[in-house]
């Protein structure tokens, strides 16, 4: 009998635990899963949760959702850069009947089926940060053109290594091998590298969206290529990983690291001398623009063929074809890095 009592106690305890957490989140997002006809529910899916880059995008997205009083924002993503988990989330959002799904795709092929089904169910599908297959979404909110980002990183590296005649071996630490954005940037990096005949690309690595793996890959590169002069870290976690590897190898000043990451993450390396210039865009604005674009597309205000639309505090933004462009890249150096907080 005693056992049965404790059993009931356990079940009640579990009910309580779940019940408590229920009332907790009721306040911030528990209501967001209930559809309402004149409100727009936007589900924003990052490549992964819990890294500074996407967290700052989410902050901007929340600002936009607060300004637009008919928008409910759901922000959730996998805890590792898993396309499979993203597909599961898209499937759930379709079943719940959200209005817009905005995806930063880890893998266009894996997500294709889920995105198609969502579109068939009448959901507006857009992409941001990293594109999916063009037929699986209506618009792509692009941070900057691939040419500006890829070319910009190469120009920055050459400039920091001594100008147009910069000499040396360079390597790329990318992220997930299937991510469309990194792959697109690398194409333009290789093209731009041809303008610097003395910079030689000796290796490209794909550690995934994983700072520790990027650190290890960079260590391997430093050992294997003693003449290495520069490393490009082209994701927000590859970049600090590579900079940390250079620092720990005692190669500060010999090997220069540049790439894409948030100023807060890179500030110690800029101060330390491993990095001269950080390339990025305003990530908060990217999240902000994505939510404004999602709402405008859903309400019919922004339609295919438009050339521009107004996105709140960002003003008029250019639309070319099926791409909405945030703008240009930003460069952070010792002079200005303290002025940015994201």
């Amino acid at each position, binding site marked *: 009998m005693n*056992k049965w009592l404790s059993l009931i106690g356990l*079940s009640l305890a*579990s009910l309580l635990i*779940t019940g408590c957490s229920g009332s907790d989140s009721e306040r911030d997002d528990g209501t967001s*899963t209930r559809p309402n006809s004149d409100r727009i529910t936007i589900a924003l899916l990052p490549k992964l949760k819990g890294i500074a880059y996407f967290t700052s995008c989410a902050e901007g997205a929340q600002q936009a959702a607060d300004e637009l009083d008919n928008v409910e924002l759901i922000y959730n993503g*996998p*805890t590792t850069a898993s396309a*499979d988990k993203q597909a599961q989330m898209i499937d*759930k959002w379709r079943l719940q009947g959200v209005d817009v799904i905005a995806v930063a795709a880890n893998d266009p092929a*894996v997500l294709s089926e889920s995105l198609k089904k969502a579109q068939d169910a009448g959901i507006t599908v857009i992409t941001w940060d990293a594109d999916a297959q063009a037929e699986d979404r209506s618009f792509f909110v692009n941070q900057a053109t691939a040419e500006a980002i890829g070319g910009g990183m190469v120009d920055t590296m050459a400039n920091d290594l001594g100008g147009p005649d910069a000499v040396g071996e360079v390597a790329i630490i990318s992220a997930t091998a299937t991510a469309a954005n990194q792959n697109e940037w690398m194409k333009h990096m290789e093209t731009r590298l041809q303008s610097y005949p003395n910079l030689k690309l000796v290796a490209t690595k794909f550690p995934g969206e994983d700072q520790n793996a990027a650190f290890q890959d960079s260590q391997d590169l430093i050992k294997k290529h003693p003449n290495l002069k520069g490393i490009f870290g082209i994701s927000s976690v590859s970049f600090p990983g590579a900079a940390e590897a250079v620092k720990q190898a005692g190669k500060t000043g010999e090997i220069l690291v540049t790439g894409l990451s948030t100023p807060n993450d890179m500030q110690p390396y800029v101060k330390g001398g491993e990095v001269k210039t950080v390339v990025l865009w305003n990530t908060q604005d990217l999240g902000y623009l994505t939510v404004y674009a999602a709402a405008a597309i859903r309400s019919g205000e922004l339609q295919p063929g438009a050339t521009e639309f107004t996105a709140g505090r960002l003003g008029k933004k250019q639309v070319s074809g099926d791409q909405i462009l945030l703008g240009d890249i930003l460069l952070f150096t010792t002079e200005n890095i303290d002025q940015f907080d994201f």
Partner: protein
Amino acid sequence: MKKFAYELFLLGLIGVVFAIAAILDPRFLSKNVQLELSSEIWELGLLTLGMTLVIITAGIDLSVGSAMGLCSVSLGLCMHANLPTWLCALACLVTGLTAGALNGSLVAFMKVHPLLVTLATYGMYRGFAEGLQSATTNAPVDASEGIKSLAAGTFPLVPLLFAALTVWTAILLGRTAAGRGLYAIGHNEEAARFSGIPIAKLKFWIYTYTGLLAGLAAISYSARRSATAEAGMVIELDVISAVVIGGTSIEGGRGRIAGTLLGVLLIHETRQFVDWYWQRSELTLIVIGTLLILAVLGHRFLFAQNPKTR
């Protein structure tokens, strides 16, 4: 009744999950939603069948998810080469069988601890999968029409196969000499050896069987998503959790397929509902962890006098 007290406890917990869902968001319980979400349960279910046998012998297989990734990549390579569907599926199963047999040989014949063996192959198989993928297609391969209609078409082949294998595994475990041998190994390997139980042979075959199931799971996964080295990533955590929540003792000697089935259902429904309602990936991890501890404590309460009761 007493014999099934723990299974009743699990049913109670599943009832609690459904009750919470009914209060917070009844849409989750609709047939349509449950059917759609169920597509994710079959791979987990298949893998737990082998894992139950392995854990009953006081073993463990950490490499199931990685083996699944390797199988998925080999399936992708065959589809990429436009081989016929049956050959692609066969290659995938043979890959799983080989991966399992390697684990089995090292555990059974070389007598290396299963935790060490499968920790090593956990890394190896995933490494092979990723290396093979980046050396060949460098990207996931979309499932061919043949594979899609085989494993994700209108005919529910995967669920039926899962049902058949569940019955087969339950009979093997509960009604045959081999099954009694597995319990005996888990209880006391030394005693089992003196009773003339073919320990090495049995161990070899259960790891090989688990590998074969990883091959089947890989076909199901690849048909739903795509053939990729990412298949089965961290699924081993759910597989082991489901088996242990299902009442199989991690120290071996105790466990039933019925319990494992309930464990799979409990993990699946809990994960899906927490994901569904709270939209926080990190919360799901915490809840599944809490569930595991709750189940182990629940088992201890129920069987306080006789911890080795089957």
